[in-house]
């Protein structure tokens, strides 16, 4: 089953083409990676998928619904969540509250009923807390639960961002360079976490520069360069693809898988 289908997608910024006529399909419950050199248009692609940018042309179908024309919060409400390349944590909030924000779409109370503490609020608060703890435990963050987000080290924040995204119970999780800036141990933990996420039934769309991680964790890989598709296939196919080796990896690079 195809979860996400991108067709003829193009985006340019003031005459500079960032994405040109891009097509790909993401199958359900897989880890699908997008790789390419810096400036290849990966983050632009993510920003279009999540409704932050509007493409010039093309279509993005998620569960057969068109995403183009929807605002980010509307895209999120369909079951798409994401993490960011440069951390976008709520540093003014505690770890638990950060993840509780992730439960926003699964809860309903409004500002007026909250102000008056109508009876449903207490139940909803307990529910949001239970969901948040679940997401934190899933990402092995339970020991940080009582802390402020601003007090945490970088590697932990990377996982906290994922916990927040998972608290929304998405069907599709867009991960923008989850291993950037992590040390070796943290990268191994991240690899395991991505696998657990996929095993729990969430489709993962991954942008990552750490080739070892990408080759190890992906079911399929899309290679883009200058905003267009260069190759697509399983990790083994990609590693053997002469176009990829030549254009992107430059000749005789060996993977350290």
């Amino acid at each position, binding site marked *: 089953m195809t979860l996400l289908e991108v067709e003829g997608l193009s985006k340019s910024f003031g005459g500079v083409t960032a994405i040109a006529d891009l097509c790909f399909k993401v199958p359900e419950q897989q880890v699908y990676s997008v790789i390419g050199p810096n400036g290849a248009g990966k983050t632009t692609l993510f920003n279009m998928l999540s409704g932050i940018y509007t493409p010039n042309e093309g279509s993005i179908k998620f569960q057969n619904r068109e995403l183009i024309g929807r605002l980010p919060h509307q895209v999120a409400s369909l079951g798409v969540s994401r993490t960011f390349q440069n951390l976008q944590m709520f540093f003014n909030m505690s770890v638990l509250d950060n993840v509780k924000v992730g439960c*926003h779409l699964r809860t309903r109370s409004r500002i007026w009923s909250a102000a008056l503490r109508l009876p449903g609020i207490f139940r909803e608060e307990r529910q949001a807390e239970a969901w948040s703890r679940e997401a934190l435990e899933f990402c092995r963050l339970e020991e940080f639960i009582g802390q402020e987000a601003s007090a945490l080290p970088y590697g932990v924040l990377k996982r906290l961002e994922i916990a927040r995204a998972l608290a929304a119970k998405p069907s599709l999780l867009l991960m923008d360079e989850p291993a950037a800036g992590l040390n070796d141990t943290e990268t191994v933990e991240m690899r395991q976490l991505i696998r657990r996420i996929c095993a729990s039934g969430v489709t993962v769309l991954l942008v990552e520069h750490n080739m070892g991680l990408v080759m190890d964790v992906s079911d399929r890989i899309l290679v883009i360069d200058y905003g267009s598709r260069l190759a697509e296939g399983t990790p083994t196919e990609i590693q053997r693809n002469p176009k990829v080796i030549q254009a992107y990896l430059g000749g005789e690079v060996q993977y350290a898988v």
Partner: protein
Amino acid sequence: MRYLRGFFILTAIVVAMPFLFPDNYYVTVVAVAAGLNAILAVSLNLLMGYAGQISLGHAAFFGIGAYSSAILTTRFGWNPWLAIVAGMALTCSVAFLVARPILRLKGHYLAMATLGLGIIVNILLVQGERWTGGPDGLGDIPTLSIFGWIVDSDLRWYIVIGSVLLLVVVLAQNIINSRSGRALRALHGSEVAAEMMGINTTATKTAVFVLAALIASLAGSLFSHQQTFVSPESFSFFFSIELVTMVVLGGMASTYGAVLGAVILTFLPELLVVFEEFEVMIFGAILMLMMIFLPQGLLVGFNEQIRKWLLQRARASGGEQRRDIA
């Protein structure tokens, strides 16, 4: 109920003051002004401290409320309570209309736009002489009566303003510790991430802007009836700045901090009167020192100092407990 701990302390203080200092000028007169300022600061703090949307025009909504009450009761003979509701309805529509275009702006631009709003409203109050009485203001505003209990003494006003303040504080705390409150804080932390978590940031900003304006309008109406006289200078740009100072001084994103900031900024000039011509200078110096030594604001900064001190003491008394407290 932990988030209401401060509320109980505040209630105890508000209740105890008139008993501890009966017939004291500072309790019955200055504290009423402080209470009104605190209501305004708490509402502004929802918008500015929590949601991160700077407003330099909060006095505009205070003014709309005050003048609605003043005009409707003196010129049309409306019941004061009805006038308060009408004022809030008017404020609600004005806030709603300006919210969308204004809240698109960020940072300095938002500050400038709200500043403009404040100045426009103030000019309307000065120029609309036929209705507002112009620069001379409007007098003979009737006082309030609650089921026959006429609010006609300083002490009674203390009770009314104190109760409204406590109510507003509890509303604010309830909101902050809820789904909507987290949405507010989230959009302050990162607007793009908040959107991605499914928060409609435009609607959330509008809601908090309207809510803050409504509370300010209520405070304005109460001010009108308590003073029995209003004039445009109470709702000028300078008062908006004073409100921002209260919020920053007490500590952004802290409801009780906003109350403390309002209380200090109201009492300080009163207490400094003894210095006569040096009053303003000393006032400024005190503000500067406070911001230099407690930049996060008085309440927030003070709490932090206490926490640090407790932590140091715990470390000195033995290493094992370190983890629990940290």
